[in-house]
């Protein structure tokens, strides 16, 4: 799966988690840029991504994710394993 497809998958999960159907994400989008994307919402988003892509992030990986691009890279890395 290429990065754009992963981004599209993440975008849909974030839209559902935050109830923002028109939200558009880019690789540079960070949680602080998005209404309602706080630490609690982030847990739902992470669990949604893990379930959708059938992967599991380590706590260290989660700590180092600074934007959507890091999430996409994280998913791609797990898919290659």
């Amino acid at each position, binding site marked *: 799966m290429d990065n754009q497809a992963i981004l599209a998958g993440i975008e849909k999960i974030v839209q559902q*988690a*935050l*109830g923002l159907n028109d939200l558009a994400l880019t690789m540079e989008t960070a949680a602080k840029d998005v209404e*309602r994307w706080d630490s609690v919402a982030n*847990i*739902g988003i992470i669990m949604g991504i893990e379930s959708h892509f059938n992967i599991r992030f380590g706590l260290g990986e*989660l700590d180092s994710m600074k934007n959507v691009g890091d999430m996409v890279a994280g998913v791609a890395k797990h898919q290659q394993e």
Partner: protein
Amino acid sequence: MTMSTTSIATRTFSLENQKDFARLSGDCNPIHIDPEVARRSLFGRPVVHGVHALLWGMEAATASLPSFYLKALTVRFMKPLFLDRTVQAEWTQKDNNLTLTINCGLSTALIATAETSEDVPPSKQILPTDNCLPDECCIDLGQDQLKEGGAGEIPLSLNQALARSLFPILAVSLAREQLAGLITTSRVVGMRCPGLHSIFSSMSLTATQVESRHASYEVIQFDDRFSMTVLKYTCPGLSGTINAFLRPKPSEQPTYGQIKQFVTPNEFSGVKALVIGGSRGLGEVTSKILAAGGAEVRGTFTKDATTPTESPTKSSRTAKASLFGN
């Protein structure tokens, strides 16, 4: 096709409203109905039952439907709602799809999406209606127990009179087993699993036809990265998953006896101390240290002299300490 429309309703939740919902649901978790216990939680005050807020919002949003059945419902409880604050429900209805948000000020407390049908399948269940829910202890499951899994069931019932007084429209329009099933999710999370130290995070349910008089739940995952429990939930009209956090327990301070071992006797003899906020937290520990060292301690408190579990005055007859409040 129905055009989408957006509408708004407002209200406040009082402690009395909370106690009524606790009677209806059986969710008597003290975080919702006991201000003293709630004060010591991470929220610092009583929190509205999330399902109470949800049902109020659904009541307002579905007022035009004479009767309906939920085909699907997804709810995310994003922020706690507190008592005596104006909360606002805002919803959009398009065809049979409902999007509901409940806000307090600028923050969104709850987002729900529902797919409804006016085709209500005939109910196979006759639920007891004259319920007087048995007194139930709030179970306190910890991480280790949740990791091991667990399951249980709750007999479904619906106190019609109370349901109608709290949700006059929904109690008539929503299929009864689905209303009872939704109300019971609050009891499952708040009283059973995780129970005492829980936070209802989200649920995702779809219509189901199960011949049972019980709501059943089963832990299917405990994610210790986030202290998140995932439950499988099934009742006669709905089934799906519930996510709930295990929240941190209030911290307990060391006892006077434990502290005394680390303090030289008479280290503080002749000291007259006034500890502001001496009934709990750092103030409680400070009072105990001073009292253990022979100081004459006075402590202040703001709310309730009975809350300190072990004030220096209670812990030792020889310690010269007392508490006074306003």
